[in-house]
Every structure is written in structure tokens, then in C-alpha cells.
């Protein structure tokens, strides 16, 4: 038996001339949280829709839960939970009935769904909102309801397309906590995100996507170790000064990355680098020392930052 829940070979998606997903390979194993990290337009959502059996692939092989989506789309969808990028709850129905109709789409008997609605509303911390209108919920509550809805059929695989985009920090942390619990319960998660902290928090393994291609693959830790020195010193100079001082930074770090508003110095030891900057008589407005992140990996691989 194929040990992977999802496996893709040369998976490609074209829209007319535009190649959204360009011949990518990946495997998702049971029980892991697998991430697609990349900026908007990298091909993450197109890949998710192909995995979700709602978008036919243009070329390559794809197997989801051991089934080819072109052949057994409905049987795949019966075992998936899907949290789309945009909430598509039915605003004409109250919270509880949104879960009810969804359960019915999966052909579950009403008493079973009623049981699960109770559990899922508790899980989503929406117990008191069963009769509420969807429109009265906050953004974070709607997201949690969408996740609860995706769990109504007890899916083997949960697809989350940018689950926390647009949420405030508190709502994000609550959501991460819920997703972490699911992972603990053994649900396999596939997550797309353009937030490196989200990928670091949630993903056991991830691929970095850019312009339809996979540019790197590994655990967050591995990727950081492979593509970026351990620490970063961020320097911010007064307007117009940055260009003049760039030459003087030569040799203070392993690698220098120049962004419009700041300079990043990659180094094995941030303290030594900062001392070297000061020793050269440079006086940045601010100096921030931090650990390398996936953002740095992405910057290194593509020359662009993840969130514009």
C-alpha cells in the first residue's frame, strides 16, 4: 500500500497560457502537518484545489488517499475536510444549520450530525452561538466555524488554504491552538500560508513555492539551517543614508540582503556583527538582532520577501 496520503509527480496546472503550477513533486504522509509556503500567486491555492478534487490537473500524476481525483473525485471529497481561503458559509442560515447542511452533503444521518454539531461548536468555542446569524460572528469566529464545518465528516485529511490570513494576532493564536489539537489527534493537515511564523508553528514539513515551482523542501528547522546563517542583524538607517553606507558594510556578515527600508546582515554570531558595524563608525537608527526565520530562507531563495 502507498504509505503517503497525497502524492504528486510532475503535477501541473495551466490556465490557458498561464502556468499556475509547474510540474511539482511532493508527498504527504499520514499524521503530518504539511505546508505550502509562498507569496500570493505562487500556485499554492491551485495545488490545494487539485488535491481537493475540484480542479482537474493539466498534466502529471496525482493520488489523494490512494485515489486518482480524475476518476474518483467524489470518493476523495467524501473523506476530506476543506477550509477555503475565503469563508463561504451560508449567511442565510444560522451557525448550527450551516453545520447541518454540510453534514447532509456527506450523507450523514441527522441525529449523528446533531451530536457532532455539539462537539464541534465546543471545539470551535462557539457553543453559545448555535442559533446566531453567521454575519454576527467576528472574522476569527467565522474561520473557526469554517474549520468546524470541515470536520463534520471526520475527515482523514484536512486542507487549510491560508487559514489565518486577515485575522488579528489573538484570533490567530486561538486558531493555531485548535489546529495543533487536531494534529495531536492524528488528523493529517495540509496548510498553505504566506506567513513564515505560521509555517514554523504548525508544519512538520513544508515546501517553499515560487512562481508555480517548488524551490525548497524540508522541516522549518532544516530549511533555515540549510539556507540561512543562524542569526540576523537588521539595520535601519535614516532616509537616503542607506545607499551611501552599503559599501562600508562589506565583510561584516556572511551575506547581505538590501531591502527598501533596511539592510539584513546574515551571520553566525549577531553580537560580533553588530560590534563590527559600530567599529566602522556606522550609526544606524535601529539595530535588531534576531534568529533566522523562514522569511530569510524565502528571501534567499527568491530575492523577494513573502509578504509584500
Amino acid at each position, binding site marked *: 500500500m502507498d504509505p503517503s496520503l497525497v502524492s504528486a509527480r510532475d503535477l501541473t496546472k495551466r490556465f490557458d497560457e498561464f502556468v499556475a503550477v509547474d510540474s511539482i513533486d511532493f508527498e504527504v504522509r499520514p499524521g503530518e502537518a504539511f505546508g505550502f509556503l509562498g507569496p500570493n500567486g505562487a500556485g499554492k491555492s491551485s495545488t490545494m*484545489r487539485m488535491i481537493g478534487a475540484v480542479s482537474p490537473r493539466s498534466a502529471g500524476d496525482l493520488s489523494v488517499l490512494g485515489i486518482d481525483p480524475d476518476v474518483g473525485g467524489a470518493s476523495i471529497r467524501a473523506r476530506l475536510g476543506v477550509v477555503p481561503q475565503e469563508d463561504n458559509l451560508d449567511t442565510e442560515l444560522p451557525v448550527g444549520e450551516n453545520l447541518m447542511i454540510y453534514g447532509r452533503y456527506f450523507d450523514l444521518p441527522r441525529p449523528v450530525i446533531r451530536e457532532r454539531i455539539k462537539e464541534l461548536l465546543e471545539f470551535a468555542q462557539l457553543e453559545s452561538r448555535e442559533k446566531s446569524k453567521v454575519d454576527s460572528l467576528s472574522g476569527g469566529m467565522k474561520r473557526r466555524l469554517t474549520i468546524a464545518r470541515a470536520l463534520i465528516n471526520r475527515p482523514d485529511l484536512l486542507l487549510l488554504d491560508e487559514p489565518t490570513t486577515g485575522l488579528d494576532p489573538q484570533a490567530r493564536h486561538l486558531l493555531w491552538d485548535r489546529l495543533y489539537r487536531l494534529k495531536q489527534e492524528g488528523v493529517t493537515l495540509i496548510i498553505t500560508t504566506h506567513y513564515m511564523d505560521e509555517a514554523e508553528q504548525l508544519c512538520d514539513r513544508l515546501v517553499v513555492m515560487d512562481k508555480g515551482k517548488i524551490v525548497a523542501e524540508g522541516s522549518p528547522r532544516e530549511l533555515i539551517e540549510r539556507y540561512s546563517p543562524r542569526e540576523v542583524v537588521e539595520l535601519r538607517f535614516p532616509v537616503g543614508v542607506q545607499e551611501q553606507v552599503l559599501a562600508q558594510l562589506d565583510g561584516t556578515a556572511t551575506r547581505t540582503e538590501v531591502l527598501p527600508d533596511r539592510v539584513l546582515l546574515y551571520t553566525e554570531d549577531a553580537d560580533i556583527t553588530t560590534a563590527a558595524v559600530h567599529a566602522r563608525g556606522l550609526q544606524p537608527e535601529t539595530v535588531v538582532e534576531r534568529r533566522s526565520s523562514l522569511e530569510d530562507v524565502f528571501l534567499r531563495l527568491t530575492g523577494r520577501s513573502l509578504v509584500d
Partner: protein
Amino acid sequence: MTTRGALRYFETRARVYRHVWRGSMISTFLNPIMFLAAMGLGLGSLVDEGPGAATLEGVSYLAFLAPGLMAATAMQAAAGDSSWPVMAGIKWLKTYDAALATPVGVPDLVTGHVAFVTVRVVFASGVYGLIAAGFGALSVPSALLATLPAGLTGLAFAAPVTAYTASLQRETGLTALFRFGIVPMFLFSGTFFPISQLPGYMQPLAYLTPLWHGVELTRAAALATSPAWNPVAHVLVLIVFTVAGTILAIRQLGGRLIT
């Protein structure tokens, strides 16, 4: 497509209806009363006295008008339910995307939608028929019998209008559909006067509209008269619109949502 999938979507529409039905009740009850009073009784008193009464096959204008309005209401309700709400499912609420992430497929959505609209239409035309019976235009049994051809008229509009809506990028096309399609049909397809009163060159145009066939059948059922053509021919035309509309709707919606 599975019957089960279609039933599941039908169930969703029914649940939604349970929350929004009040909004449609006023028009469902008030429209028949206003139209039958103003046109049937008011205008009818002039028609029945005038030389045109002969073209009405020996019934009062009120009795002539009532089944025509039942069919026209079926058309309007079916077109209304298959336009903005379908656009909402595709684009504004994206509830179709939500359903398609489950085992429910596009053919289930289309057939479940059309089936639910038909039930609504039979109900609305039934209310119309019973109010007309209250006005003394029809007997209650013939009013109820007439809901069947009215329901078929609704089907013949629900499916093609769904296909049309699914082909639109923006909702401006829906306003155009009502302005240049539904309203002219309402006025010129035999609801208010026999199409024999139209200029000769316009009569074949009426044959092309599903509403004229629906009106002929509904009127024949309500008044126990013979329609203009063989009833089987009228039924076939409406079935062709229904089947072709359903196939087109599935194709359009699939092309739109399964990308």
C-alpha cells in the same frame, strides 16, 4: 449525478427557505389580489361589455386572465429564484464552492436547485389559483389542476435562466434578462389577451416563448378548454426548454466552478 446528491441540495434550499419565506409571502398573496381586482374585475368589466369579448372563448375576462396569471407568476418566480440567488451561490456567498468541496457535484446542484424552484412555483401558482377561485374565476379543483402545467412552466424557466445566470460575469445581465425577456413575455405571451390580437408577424415570436405554451396549457387545464396546439406539443416544447436548460446549466456552472 446522483438523486441523493440532488436531494441534499434540495434540502439546503428548503432550510434556507424556512428562514426567508416571510419576505416572499407578501408578494405571493398580495400580487394575485391586486392583479385580479384591477385587471380581472376592473378592466374585465369593460372587456366583457365590449366587442372583444368574443375572442375569449365564452368565458369572462376574469376567468380568462386568472390561469394566464398563474403561468406568468410561475415564470416570474422561477426566473427570480434562478437569477440573483444563483449568482449569490456562484459569486457573492460562494455557497456552491462550499457544496462542491463535498461529494455533491455540479449536476446535483443544478437539479436540486431546479427541483426546489419548481416546488416553490407550484406553491405560488396554487396560491394564485385559490385566490382566483375566491374571486369566482375558477373552481377550486380546476385551480389546483392548473398548478401542474404552471409548475411545468416554472421548470421551463428555472433551468434555462440558471444556465444564463451561470454564464454571466456581472449581475447587470440579470436586469437585462428581466427588462428584455421576462417583462415582454409577461405582456405579450397570451397572459392578458389572446395572441391572435397581436400583429400577424409577431405571433410566431410568441410561439418561441415558453410562456405562451405554459399559458395555453394552464388555461386549458383551468377552464377545461382545448389549447391552441395539441396539448402534447405544448408539453413537449416546455420539456425541451427544461432539458436543454438543465444540460446547459450543468455545462455552464461546471465550466465556471470546476476550473
